[in-house]
């Protein structure tokens, strides 16, 4: 298993796209940190990068990589290795190399330049989103045989999580604005990893504005240590469940 992970990581790290992704992230982070005089503002801009660019690159890159290594996977299946191990190793290699890119591009400069709890949370959430979206990519690609379809599904998934879902929530919040929506909105927030990460950070960045009634409900739920742990627990579920589905499908799949 470790050997497969090593092969995958080495293979990806040689990839020009991943290198340029790292450089891009690094450049953006440094620009944000140096050009903005206001620390909150630079963290906000970085938050947008983490919430939009990271999931997009993770899901697309992972999907394409899976389809490109179909032959490698077929070769491995011929060896006496369990199928779940093969898939999990490929996933681990992918996630690991994307994490390395994120760590060098955003994590290191941010933690060196600005060591506050908020930036630690930002890096943690970015890392989790990378892991989650590559897991979703593996799930999608295992289910779709056709490469074009697989990439389409990946793009749709990203579109859904980062835009459509929030639009739907906004719509719901307005349709049912006569009802108390505090608790349902906690549930709605947990059903989307991007929203969950955003809310955890929002409670720190805009703490004053979040002290209204709705915000107070959120704050008492997600703002406490237990709430943050629960949030991260749900995010971990978001990684585990797609992987579990992918492995189940892959075990019985006719390659």
């Amino acid at each position, binding site marked *: 298993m470790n050997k497969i992970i090593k092969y995958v990581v080495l293979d990806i790290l040689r990839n020009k796209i991943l290198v340029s992704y790292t450089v891009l992230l690094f450049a953006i982070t440094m620009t944000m940190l140096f050009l903005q005089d206001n620390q909150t503002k630079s963290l906000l801009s970085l938050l947008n990068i983490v919430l939009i660019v990271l999931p997009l690159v993770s899901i697309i890159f992972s999907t394409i990589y899976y389809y490109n290594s179909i032959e490698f996977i077929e070769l491995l299946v011929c060896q006496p290795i369990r199928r779940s191990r093969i898939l999990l190793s490929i996933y681990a290699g992918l996630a690991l190399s994307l994490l390395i890119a994120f760590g060098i591009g955003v994590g290191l400069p941010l933690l060196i330049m600005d060591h506050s709890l908020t930036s630690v949370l930002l890096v943690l959430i970015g890392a989790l989103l990378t892991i989650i979206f590559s897991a979703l990519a593996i799930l999608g690609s295992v289910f779709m045989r056709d490469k074009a379809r697989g990439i389409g599904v990946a793009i749709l998934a990203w579109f859904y999580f980062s835009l459509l879902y929030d639009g739907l929530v906004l719509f719901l919040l307005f349709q049912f604005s006569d009802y108390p929506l505090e608790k349902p909105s906690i549930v709605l927030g947990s059903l989307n990893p991007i929203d969950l990460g955003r809310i955890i950070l929002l409670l720190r960045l805009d703490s004053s504005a979040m002290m*209204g009634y709705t915000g107070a409900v959120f704050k008492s739920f997600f703002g406490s240590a237990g709430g943050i742990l629960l949030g991260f627990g749900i995010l971990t579920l978001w990684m585990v469940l797609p992987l579990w589905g992918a492995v189940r499908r892959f075990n019985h799949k006719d390659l």
Partner: protein
Amino acid sequence: MERLISLMLLLSLSNLGFGRVLKVSPSGPLTSVADAVRRAAAGDTVLVYPGVYYEKGLVIDKPIHLKGIGQPALDGEHRYEVVTIRSGGVTMEGFVVRHSGYSDWNDLAGIRLAAVRHVVIKNNQLDDTFFGLYCQNSDSCVLENNTLHSRSDSARLAGNGIHCWHCNGMQLLNNTITRHRDGIYFEFVTNSLIQGNRSFYNMRYGLHFMFSHNDVYDGNRFEHNEAGVSVMFSHGVNMKHNLFADNQGGGAYGILLKEITDSRIELSRFVHNTVAIYMEGTTRVQVSQNVFRDNGWALKVQASCSDDTITKNNFLGNTFDIATNGSLVLNNFDRNYWDKYDGYDLNRDGYGDVPYHPVSLYAMVAEKNPSVMMLFHSFIVSLLDRTEKVMPSITPADLVDHIPFMKPITL
């Protein structure tokens, strides 16, 4: 006014020189403050030495100088109003006043000033009192350097720290008030100076006044109060160099202005409040040279406000700069610095060339439906805000800073 007070001080000083001195201490010659007050004549000085005195409601009814040496304690045994001053010209200093009674139908106080003039209360510590300093129908009194601390846990059981009702020409200087219901409470108090006081961790408002005209608030600090500061139905309010900080919660305001006219809020700092200033029905209020930093909403200006001027303020790191509840705008927002402004300055005169609209779409939306705050900073919300900036449809087009500063104003 001040001249009059200094004259009075001079007079009371000269009294000190000529009057007798009565000494009270647990070992004698006099062991009761009430006894000493009874024996004293106008202009005498009563010196009280360290000890605990249970006076069962001390009444001071002649102009004497009551001086505590080494912090003697007057104890109300949780039953009595500790000190009641019924005579003008009294000076009381250096006491610990503690354990006043509590009543649901009587405002028992640590020290009550009942219809008096030229009373000076200074350097006292009021501890565990229901109401702290209670002034009614009084004129030209000085409350200075007192520390007020209530020990009750609920707002129902706590009274106000400094409570003034129907007073004129009061001076509240450098007092510290904590854990009361309202730190400073005024009703019908005019021509007064409130300077250098600290009011924090109170259960309702740090400062709360109504029908109190022409008062000056200078250099006070209002922090961590449950509901912030609330002022209503007054004119000629002059506030400067104050700090309003960390007043957070659904109904907490740095300062809430309701029906305030012809007033000024200047050179103050508003930090970490849920809403820094909430304005409702205000007229001709000038908000200038203040700093608004890291508030949820810097200003909530309701459409019922008119002829207010908001100018030369720094808006830094607030989630929303301005929110409003209608499209009618009768106020002037020119010449402020907004950190969210992204215009340019071609002629380099220090002012931006494009106007700034400080109300964002989402501020309007959140005003109507607060639960949408959970989507703040999401992609779709940023998109909506951008669209609204290009084609304003919901945000009031008249709420605009025509000449915003490019750099923060040095204050």
